[in-house]
């Protein structure tokens, strides 16, 4: 089987960093902040690499839409095992709709049999790009995946839903979005980091792909949420229950 898998990866503020709202109220401070691959994209990439290792896919292509520095994210992806990378360069902060429209152009160029992507980016938390892309392509979608089995040109996908696990069967090509428990991504080994430097990385200009990138949302402002204050430490369970009854009045 010669199916190519396309994996979009986003460069985001590292998940261990507590973001700070920028003083100008336009967004979140990213200057000098550690950036990493969106954790859900890592999981989606790991799944794609495993599909190739099991013989279901012939190659894994990663694509990132972002600034020049997103190259680092793509090199990390290739060190994990992706075969080649595409950077769609833009300094604008694009919305999921514009990202999906750009990805559609890349899909039409690369012709993958599967797009494996994260269910949400941990910066804008929108949880939308995969579904929008599937709609634009007219492809089926399997979101929030916790297990993927490929057979006979189809993917049987277990999905994390509100009450438990749902299983759907989608024809390929399809878009699958990864949830946390799909797999545990591997670490890139030092030799693989070296090898990744020689893998092909193509750069395209987002503006040149004939896609309308105009934002539909105007950011009016970004503010700090109200902070919770630390309360009191109690010594005994009886004291706790007493306070919950008489002070907090929740029991």
């Amino acid at each position, binding site marked *: 089987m010669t199916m190519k898998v396309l994996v979009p990866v986003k460069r985001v*503020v590292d*998940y261990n960093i*507590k*973001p700070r*709202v920028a003083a100008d109220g336009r967004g*979140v401070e990213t200057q000098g902040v550690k950036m990493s691959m969106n954790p859900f994209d890592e999981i989606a990439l790991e799944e794609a690499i495993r599909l190739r290792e099991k013989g279901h896919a012939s190659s894994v292509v990663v694509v990132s839409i972002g600034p020049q520095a997103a190259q680092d994210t793509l090199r990390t992806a290739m060190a994990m095992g992706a075969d080649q990378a595409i950077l769609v360069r833009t300094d604008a902060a694009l*919305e*999921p*709709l514009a990202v999906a429209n750009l990805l559609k152009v890349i899909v039409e160029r690369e012709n993958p049999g599967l797009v494996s992507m994260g*269910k949400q980016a*941990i*910066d804008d*938390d*929108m*949880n*939308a790009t*995969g*579904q*929008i892309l*599937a*709609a*634009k392509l007219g492809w*089926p*979608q399997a*979101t*929030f995946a916790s297990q993927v089995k490929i057979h006979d040109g189809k993917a049987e996908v277990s999905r994390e839903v*509100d*009450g*438990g*696990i*749902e*299983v*759907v*069967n989608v024809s390929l090509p*399809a878009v699958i979005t990864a*949830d*946390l428990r799909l797999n545990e991504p591997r670490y890139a080994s030092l030799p693989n980091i070296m090898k990744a430097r020689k893998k092909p990385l193509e750069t395209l200009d987002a503006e040149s792909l004939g896609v309308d990138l105009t*934002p*539909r*949302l*105007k*950011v*009016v402002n*970004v*503010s700090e*949420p109200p902070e*919770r204050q*630390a*309360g*009191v*430490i*109690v010594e005994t*369970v009886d004291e*706790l*229950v007493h*306070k*919950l009854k008489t002070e*907090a009045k*929740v*029991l």
Partner: protein
Amino acid sequence: MTALVLIETEQGTVRQASRSAISAASRFGDVDVILFGDNAENAAKLANVRKVLHVTNLPHLLAEPAAALLATLAENYTHIVSAVSANSKNILPRLAGLLDVQPLTDVIEIKNDDTFVRPIYAGNALATVQSSDRIKVLTVRGSSFDPVAAEGGNAPVETLGAPGGYDKSHFVKVEFSHSDRPELEVARVIISGGKGVKDAGNFQKLLEPIADKLNAAIGASRAAVDAGFAPNEMQVGQTGKVVAPELYIAVGLSGALQHLAGIKDSRVIVAINIDPDAPIFKVADYGIVGDLFDILPALEKAL
């Protein structure tokens, strides 16, 4: 202005979060609701509803035909709304793709017809955004809006069929973990366990008796779910369920950024943790530093 609200039922009754979505959408004008599956008679009784659209041939709510149907109705509406749920997060962004509009996820405040507040960065920042799209597609957080009444209305029901013939996606099965406990999103009390609970047996033995006494829902941290102590639908946090109970009891969980994102709106937080420096104590109203294996049995007795 007219809004269409996608509502869901749970064991026959309309979910409380769906009733909250109706009240949120009432800000925009008249509200029609659309229901996939049974129990349209319960939808007809909801307050503030002009008309019930009842789709009878799509019980499993596959995103592809559901979004395709919604797209044929969308031009009659200025806003398409649903409460945040696994189904709405699956379907509404796909609908937005079909309509070529930018959807809004997890709205917690409606400023006016086109301006909305939503959390970003795991709730560490709140973004106020103004949409220029002709049709606004949004999911709203149930706990941020008071629900409309479940009874009192008498809306007409119109039956609709989803377009047939879509054969690229099939429902295979669903495995629901059955529980008589309240849903996490609407529970008045939640007790959640983390990695510190150590195994699934302890989760049952230590958390369930307390949950029984308090009629509480049981939640879990990601680490506890990953380790198999609890099923995935119990995960609370940035990428699990966002909750806002009167009382949240956090047991043996450290209070990672991603977990706190899901519990910040709780009225009272209690933390039980052996590590006095655990970040959960920074947001807890009441804390006990100690071994949960001693504290939980004592708590059960004291209740």
